[in-house]
């Protein structure tokens, strides 16, 4: 009888224990973990930042750091969920694509209030400013970027064509691509189809007088300019100079890009991507500006920070967080550890400290930033909420033209309507 009762109590205890464990599960995470630092990236980024954090801990033995690493795609699901649960990491890497979203929703700490310890004096001015929203410093730029064209020198020269120079125009791009296609034959194309890349279209729009979006987050560019852009690429596609849509939709990763597979010698993207493409290729890659308008000026481009270091508005360790960010930006050991894995370093000092070989992809990327940074136009306002969604919409509409399901005029109108809807919600 006694044993029976004890047995029953034991089971009750087990049930209660499970219940308690389940309840406690909701409150997991954080408290004693020290300063949680989160970022996205591939293996090189993880190794570089681990080394930088180790250097920080070596100098601050009392600091406890916990790293949370993720790939770009997974990172945002996790961060959003953590932030919603009040469990965001203390310091995290933030992309321009989501910066406004998080900033406007109050998830980011105003570093102006603790910023005494973050020295931004060395940063390129356009980078230092790009983390400021409505007078509040919500993020510190961690890299400098600008738009770039990537050109396969080996392929062009093999066919007797010349590598384009800074100041080349869209017409010259089309001519070069046509010449290459005519000479190369055998399933190769003159250029990547950049018609769906909204961020390159941004340059084109600025050459036509407006940013993509106004400072208060409405569509600024006109439908006629969008249509003109789609028409430009549609013509290249129809003539077989840019690849057909099914090739394009299959080649949207670095590894499968037409540049890396050797199917097209011209490609577009952000300047630091040269360091992603070059290791995947045997041919020699050159980094040039994006084609210009008739005035041959790079004013359509801009130099800005692509990614930021941010601090959670719910952190209990704001000062330590600021200390860490300052270290990552300014300390020689951190600069050396990070190298160019996060992009082009955001200060002249860091770039010269690294002493990158000018013939390397990183060196060419840095050279382009240095060359255009005095001549580019003003940086646009931080990207509006919904930017990421519109980027996908732009690409989808371009695909639809390529697949013959739409035409430039209709796609331009659809994009303008979609932008109005997304940006007003």
């Amino acid at each position, binding site marked *: 009888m006694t044993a029976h009762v004890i047995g*029953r109590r034991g*089971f*009750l205890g*087990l*049930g*209660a224990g*499970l*219940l308690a464990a*389940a309840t406690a599960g909701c409150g997991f995470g954080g408290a004693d973990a020290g300063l949680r630092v989160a970022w996205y990236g591939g293996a090189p980024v993880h190794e570089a930042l681990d080394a930088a954090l180790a250097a920080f801990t070596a100098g601050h033995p009392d600091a406890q750091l916990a790293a949370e690493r993720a790939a770009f*795609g997974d990172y*945002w*699901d996790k961060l*959003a*969920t953590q*932030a*919603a649960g009040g469990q965001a990491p203390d310091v995290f890497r933030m992309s321009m694509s989501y910066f406004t*979203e*998080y900033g406007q*929703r*109050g*998830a980011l700490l105003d570093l102006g209030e603790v910023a005494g310890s973050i020295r931004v004096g060395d940063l390129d001015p356009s980078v230092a400013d790009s983390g400021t929203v409505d007078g509040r410093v919500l993020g510190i730029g961690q890299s400098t970027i600008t738009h770039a064209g990537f050109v396969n020198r080996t392929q062009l020269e093999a066919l007797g064509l010349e590598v384009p120079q800074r100041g080349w125009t869209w017409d010259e791009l089309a001519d070069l691509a046509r010449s290459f296609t005519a000479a190369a034959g055998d399933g190769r194309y003159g250029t990547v189809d950049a018609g769906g890349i909204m961020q390159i279209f941004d340059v084109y729009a600025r050459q036509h007088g407006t940013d993509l979006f106004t400072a208060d987050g409405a569509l600024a560019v006109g439908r006629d300019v969008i249509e003109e852009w789609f028409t430009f690429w549609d013509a290249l596609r129809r003539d077989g100079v840019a690849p057909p*849509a*099914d*090739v*394009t*939709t*299959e080649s*949207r*990763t670095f590894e499968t890009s037409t540049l890396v597979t050797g199917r097209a010698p011209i490609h577009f993207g952000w300047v630091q991507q040269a360091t992603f493409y070059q290791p995947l290729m045997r041919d020699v890659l050159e980094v040039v500006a994006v084609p210009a308008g008739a005035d041959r000026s790079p004013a359509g481009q801009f130099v800005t920070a692509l990614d930021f270091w941010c601090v959670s508005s719910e952190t209990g360790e704001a000062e330590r967080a600021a200390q860490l960010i300052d270290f990552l930006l300014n300390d020689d050991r951190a600069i050396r550890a990070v190298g160019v894995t996060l992009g082009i370093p955001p200060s002249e000092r860091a770039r010269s400290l690294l002493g990158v070989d000018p013939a390397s992809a990183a060196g060419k990327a840095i050279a382009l930033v240095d060359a255009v940074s005095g001549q580019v136009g003003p940086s646009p306002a931080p990207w509006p909420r*919904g930017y*990421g*969604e519109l980027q*996908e919409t732009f*690409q*989808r509409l371009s*695909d*639809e033209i390529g*697949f013959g*399901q739409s035409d430039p005029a209709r796609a331009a109108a659809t994009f303008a309507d979609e932008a109005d809807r*997304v940006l007003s919600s």
Partner: protein
Amino acid sequence: MTAGAVMTAARLRASLPAYAFLAPWIVGMLGITLGPMLLSLYYSFTDYALLGDPRWTGWDNYARLLTDERFHTSLRVTVVYVALSVPLELAFALLVAVVLNRGLRGLAAYRAIYYLPSLLGGSVAVAILWRQIFGRDGLVNDVLALVGVDGPGWVSSPEYSLLTLVVLRVWQFGAPMVIFLAGLRQIPDDVYEAARIDGAGAVARFVRITLPLLSPIIFFNLVLQTIGAFQAFTPAFIVSGGTGGPSDSTLFYTLYLYQRAFGSFEMGYAAALAWVLLLVIGVLTGLNFLFRRYWVFTEDEPGGVR
């Protein structure tokens, strides 16, 4: 204290161990299933961006469904996917099960081999593999090239991309096949024998005996596979790189829901989408059960199919 209260207290004490045993399930049910479900029902009536607080908007999210063209696209894509893949998968599973049931040697090995894709098919790795096989320079086109056909990029052309996902699902026929095999074993041999004596051919035996006697199993598989197909996510997510492309041709319902939730932080709208999906699946399953009596044979009803 009344006698009744004493009775109740005593009965409760007596059943406490039962509740203790049930506790893990109850906790899971309340905390992991029911709680989040009710919460998502609430969110579906709000504007909720995950980072801020939800704001009550009444039926707005549901009203928006009516004019959201990408929602309509995703619904159409998913219905086409279900309508093509489920019957094909079941037919294929049944075919293989009938062949395997003819008493092959090494049946267990065959069964295991054919079951394998079911275990792997939903995985990310296989979806990536699919992309390679059906890519423009993939295996399929290499084979077609041998016979002089220049194939398109199957996963990257809107006309064919959904079909490659249908093929991926049909390839995972192992789970229904195993269930069919078990069902086929239940059909007594003497029924076939009697039919054979009466001069019934193979086709007649299959149509007149196998199909009716197997119909409860077919029904079971149909319901399960239909629900599963509606909830498919991974293949489209991986094969299209998360976009549902090319040009929304593989925009599964669940993928669109995911994009709304985690791409643009529209948790309220995504919750509404989830509830509509639940409703759609519920109605279809209900219809399945409704039509069941017209074609499913149950032994306890004399005369079989009514």
